[in-house]
Each structure stands twice: as C-alpha cells, then as structure tokens.
C-alpha cells in the first residue's frame, strides 16, 4: 500500500452520539466531568444539553488513522487535535483526512478533520505515521 501527497484518506462515519455513549465513555476514560453527563449542570454552564467529550471525537479520529493505516503495517508517532466546536448527543461525526507530506524516510504526515452532519469542522488535527 502506498500513499501520495494530497491523497484523501477513506472517511469514517460513526453512528450518532448518544447520552448512553457519553456515560460509557466517561466510565472507560475516567473523564466524569458533569458537563458531559448532567443536563442541568451543562445548562448552568451555558449549553442547551450535555456536550460530548472532545476526546471522544479525537478517539473517532484515531479510529480513522487505524482504518487507513493498519497497526500491523504502520506505527503512529504523533497525533494532535484542536477542538473547534462542541458536539452534542445526536450529532453524526465523520472523520476525514489527507496526506499532507511524505518525507524521504517514508514518514507520512496527515491533515485530519472531523465534520458534523452539517459539514462544520468540529475537530482539526494532524498525525505522523511510519511503516512498522
């Protein structure tokens, strides 16, 4: 499998985020901030309802990397994200990306982003993978 600069990655759409998923994620990740779990708390912070963990979107993006660069063949070296817009239960997040550059040693730098159902970028990021 070879990649070229500017090549688009295969996108990865996840099912709609649910409140149950936020509870599962809070338990699995240890991030029990009530802003993700308690509507009353989230409203007092200025949001219409609980908001999804930004790290959940980063996790979706991590799955996009593994989807396009199977861990049996590639190793992830760096992975960074900027959370641009909060996401809510019901949002459908699709992770996308493209090859930004490939250096002479085969190190592949990726530009990544996640979109909600209206096409807004909710997360933008970058990653570096190398051949395992």
């Amino acid at each position: 499998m070879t990649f070229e600069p500017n090549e688009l990655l295969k996108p990865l759409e996840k099912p709609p985020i649910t409140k149950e998923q936020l509870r599962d994620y809070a338990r699995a990740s240890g991030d029990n901030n009530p802003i993700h779990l308690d509507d009353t708390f989230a409203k007092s912070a200025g949001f219409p309802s609980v908001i999804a963990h930004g790290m959940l979107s980063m996790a979706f993006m991590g799955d996009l990397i593994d989807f396009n660069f199977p861990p049996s063949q590639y190793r992830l070296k760096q992975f960074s994200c900027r959370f641009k817009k909060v996401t809510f239960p019901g949002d459908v997040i699709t992770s996308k990306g493209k090859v930004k550059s490939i250096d002479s040693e085969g190190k592949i730098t990726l530009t990544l982003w996640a979109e909600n159902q209206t096409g807004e970028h909710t997360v933008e990021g970058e990653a570096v993978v190398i051949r395992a």
Partner: protein
Amino acid sequence: MLIDLSAEPAPIQFTAEPLTEKRLSDFKRAIRAGYASIVAPSYGTTFRKGEFDLLDTLKVDLKKLLHTDQNYEYFAPFQIGDIPEVETQFVTAKERRGMVFVYLETRVTVEGELKLKSISSFVLRENNKG
C-alpha cells in the same frame, strides 16, 4: 477568579490501572471503534487523573473549562499487562482577553521506559458558550 496561581502546584504522580484486555476493549466499545489497534490511539486519555487533580488544586470551575487541544507523542507501544506510571505537571497558564489558557504535560512510563507524552490545553472563560 478563573484560576488560583498563588502557588505553582506540585506534579502529580500515580500508578494507573494495569492494561488488561477488558479495560482496553471497554474503551474501544465506548468509542465504537471498528479498526483500532489493541490499544486505541487516544487511550492516553485514561491517564488524565493527574490533570483533574491539578485543575482542582488550581481551583478551576469545571463549568468554565473547555479542552481546546490535545497532543500525543508516542515513543513505544503499550502492551497488555503494562502497569503505567504517570506524572502530570503544570506547564503554564496565560491570560489573554479575559480568558486563561492552561497547559498540562503528562509523561507515561512503564518500567522506566517512556511510552507516551501528552500535552493537554484548556481555556477558562466566564461564559462557556460553544
């Protein structure tokens, strides 16, 4: 006051739960991962206890806190059975236009070998509308 910087908080050190198949698969199920490696790329988020403890020491109100950036650098892959040693330290906080930007760094080692470095960035603001 968005943050109490009267004393720089000491680093937080702790031993994380061992990496078991169940813990790793619970994490992957929560993120609905279809393709993830044995250890999902963002599994490092499970080592954030020190961040929450530091934010508490800094008297940060979670209602005013938003996670803005996350950066991972991977030095060696985690394996099932690893018992991670975690150290989180306060890096800096900068005030700008009535908001405070906070940076925390976490290093995760297993038997002395550095496996993961993480930098988490947050913004604190009075009105937290996304």
